[in-house]
């Protein structure tokens, strides 16, 4: 029962086939059994948080939030010691929307500290584990959210994606994850990592659920000046439509060296499924793509070094007890409160913004970003979609990449270009490797083409049964 998609729950509730309290009970029972194995929650609410007046087609269907989304009155730690005691006095816009829709919130999910990481090992509290293999990571940074959906602890969850933090854990855990167009979903109340890249998005069991949850959270918000002013739309409106004649480009650089052969084979087979449904597949090339990761790590860390300057021990967050003057208090509070990866990224960002290096690093990276935006725009004049693996590899072992930050960064190589360019992209289960670990397929499209992505993704999902397979826990 716990792998019932939210859209199915919604129908069953309408038909009176199940009571709201039964649904909550099913997930609470499930967490009792599996949570000690996967450790997906940072904060589990014994009584789910909800707004009794909230109403929608999905009322009474529970959800989980990544712990960087402010829920007024409940701790929001961002996976960090520096925010361990922080209780937001205000509601994130997405939290308000979810509450208004009548969804009970089961808890807050684990994450890499400040959403910086690809494995969940950077959580200041504990790592979450991959439900498919408990010796492996669930991916990151929204690893708790992905693991909880894959384990059947919640029918769906919210994550955030700055360089792949929804899509990569979705791929590692075998669920559906969407990074919407930049500006689709309000960032008000999302703890900032890299403001020009961050987007909140859904992690779900099915493509339909994903479109439905995006319907709940998307929309203009005057509290976020980067929020797009667009009329409301139904992201599921094209589900079930024929994909005949749609053009899919496959950038050869995204299937090249570094991509695991089993991952490549799974993607090639998936392309065959699209082709058999009438889509037109062609190889294409993005020769400047190889610079995206370097540009991403300079831009993201520069923005992070600026955003995280607010953690100074003055107004909220950890304050060191060992300081005798103000500068010492800033320095001690930050040094005690932040973990190694966050410090590394603040240092890298501060360096790239510092006098004498700004032109060679930050400005150069922004210029490369312009070129990548142009390159993707040119692709979308020919193609409706671009397809690649979500991650070059499947879930790796705990500790495997912890000592070598650059090797960890390299696992993001296929997801970061999407954030730099601001386009929507979805990760979809497309098979398993020989160790029974899920493989994810990434579908990218031009800005605002989420409905088309869902159409294509569902065409594949309806022809395959990967989304019906679940880990044994």
């Amino acid at each position, binding site marked *: 029962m716990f792998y019932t998609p939210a859209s199915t729950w919604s129908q069953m509730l309408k038909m009176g086939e199940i009571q709201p309290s039964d649904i909550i009970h099913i997930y609470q029972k499930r967490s009792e059994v599996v949570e000690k194995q996967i450790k997906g929650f940072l904060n589990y609410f014994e009584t789910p948080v909800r707004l009794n007046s909230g109403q929608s087609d999905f009322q009474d269907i529970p959800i989980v939030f990544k712990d960087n989304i402010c829920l007024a009155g409940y701790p929001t730690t961002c996976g960090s010691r520096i925010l361990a005691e*922080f209780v937001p006095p205000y509601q994130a816009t997405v939290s308000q929307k979810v509450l208004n829709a009548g969804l009970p919130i089961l808890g807050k999910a684990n994450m890499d500290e400040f959403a910086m990481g690809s494995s969940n090992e950077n959580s200041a509290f504990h790592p979450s584990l991959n439900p498919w293999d408990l010796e492996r990571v669930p991916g990151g940074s929204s690893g708790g959210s992905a693991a909880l959906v894959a384990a059947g602890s919640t029918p769906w969850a919210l994550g955030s994606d700055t360089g792949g933090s929804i899509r990569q854990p979705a791929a590692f855990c075998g669920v559906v994850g969407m990074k919407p167009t930049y500006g689709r979903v309000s960032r008000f109340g999302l703890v900032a990592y890299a403001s020009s890249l961050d987007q909140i998005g859904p992690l779900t069991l099915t493509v339909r659920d994903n479109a439905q949850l995006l319907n709940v959270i998307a929309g203009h918000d005057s509290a976020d000046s980067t929020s797009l002013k667009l009329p409301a739309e139904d992201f599921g409106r094209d589900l079930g439509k024929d994909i005949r004649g749609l053009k899919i480009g496959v950038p050869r650089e995204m299937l090249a060296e570094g991509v695991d052969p089993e991952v490549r084979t799974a993607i090639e087979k998936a392309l065959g499924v699209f082709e058999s449904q009438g889509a037109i597949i062609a190889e294409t090339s993005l020769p400047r793509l190889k610079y995206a990761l370097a540009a991403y*790590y300079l831009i993201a860390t520069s923005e992070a070094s600026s955003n995280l300057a607010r953690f100074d021990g003055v107004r909220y967050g950890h304050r060191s007890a060992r*300081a005798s003057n103000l500068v*010492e208090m800033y*320095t001690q509070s930050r040094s005690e409160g932040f973990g190694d990866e966050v410090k*590394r990224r603040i*240092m*890298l960002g501060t360096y790239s913004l510092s006098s004498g290096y700004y032109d060679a690093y930050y400005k150069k990276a922004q210029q490369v970003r*312009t*070129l990548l935006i142009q390159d993707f725009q040119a692709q979308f004049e020919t193609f409706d979609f671009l397809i690649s693996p979500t991650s070059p590899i499947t879930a790796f072992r705990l500790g495997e990449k912890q000592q070598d930050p650059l090797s960890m960064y390299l696992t993001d190589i296929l997801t970061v270009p999407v954030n730099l360019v601001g386009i929507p992209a979805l990760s979809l289960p497309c098979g398993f490797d020989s160790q029974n670990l899920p493989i994810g397929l990434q579908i990218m499209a031009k800005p605002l083409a989420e409905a088309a992505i869902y159409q294509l993704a569902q065409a594949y999902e309806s022809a395959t049964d990967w989304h019906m397979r679940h880990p044994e826990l």
Partner: protein
Amino acid sequence: MISTESIKHIARLSRLSFSEAEIEQFTEQLGAILNYVDQLAELDTTGVKPASHALPAINVFRDDTVLHSLSQAQIFMNAPETEEAYFKVPQIMGDK
């Protein structure tokens, strides 16, 4: 390559303090990352406008009207130390 002196300078700018062993580790790790990002130099970007955002960003204004804001109690609820309506911090200037 980046020197340990530069790392110490960046740490001061970042308001972070490290042990000598950590400085050594960061010098090595940041050196490897900078070595990787240096490949951007291969790309000719003469005359290319830098992008601060992926989508066209414009200034967003609203009418200058009073909207709901947080109460004083809400603003101070996470403060480590307060006095009356102030955030309290250790000594800022001069000797004790």
